[in-house]
């Protein structure tokens, strides 16, 4: 059993994603949601955060939040998986606890 981390802040505006990755144990998962979804985009000044964590942590992104912000799925960093709210529920159930990086 491992933790599910949720990050809802843009990595350009706040340090939440950076801190989450620093403190997420290998084998845990991160769900990027709300303004956090910008962290899942490739070719940005912050892409290295998620790209660098990939071997150690499974990274998910909330599809409805991508759509709201006009981020098309072909812009996502390779290996990032898109889930809907039902998938979010499943992730919470599958992990031992959820830690929100607010």
């Amino acid at each position, binding site marked *: 059993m491992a933790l599910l981390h949720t990050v*809802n802040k843009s990595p350009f505006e706040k340090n939440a994603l950076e801190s989450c990755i620093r403190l997420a144990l290998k084998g845990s998962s991160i769900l990027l949601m*709300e303004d956090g979804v910008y962290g899942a985009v490739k070719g940005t000044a912050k892409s290295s955060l998620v790209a660098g964590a990939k071997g150690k942590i499974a990274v998910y992104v909330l599809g409805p939040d991508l759509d709201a912000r006009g981020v098309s799925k072909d812009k996502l960093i390779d290996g990032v998986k898109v889930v809907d709210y039902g998938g979010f529920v499943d992730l919470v159930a599958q992990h031992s*606890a959820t830690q929100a990086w*607010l």
Partner: protein
Amino acid sequence: MKFGILVNEGPYTHQASDSAYQFTKAALAKGHTIDRVFFYHDGVNNGTRFTTPPTDDRNLVNLWGGLAKEHNIDMVVCVAAAQRRGICDADEAKRHGKDGNNLADGFRISGLGQLIELGIQADRLVVFGD
């Protein structure tokens, strides 16, 4: 599974309330139960019936209230946080000498112990905030 939900921000200002609502609906649709939704910090502002959002926008107070009614969910507004922010029911209004109250249908005011209890009883606690 039994889920507990903590909402730390008011409606509209932050997406937290929307995300929590969508999550709660999805959890119910998957057959999970929602032990309680606890509203803390500015989250207490989800529980005022004086809200009148634009007609072409969602009404989050009513959405939460409707969900509570339909699925018999306990929705608790933290009393200490509510006092700081001007949310009260008839009892609270009387206790503090207020000439009215604004708590919406489907919500009740109670203490932080209800949040701790939720953490103990629920299989998972999910926090939505800023």
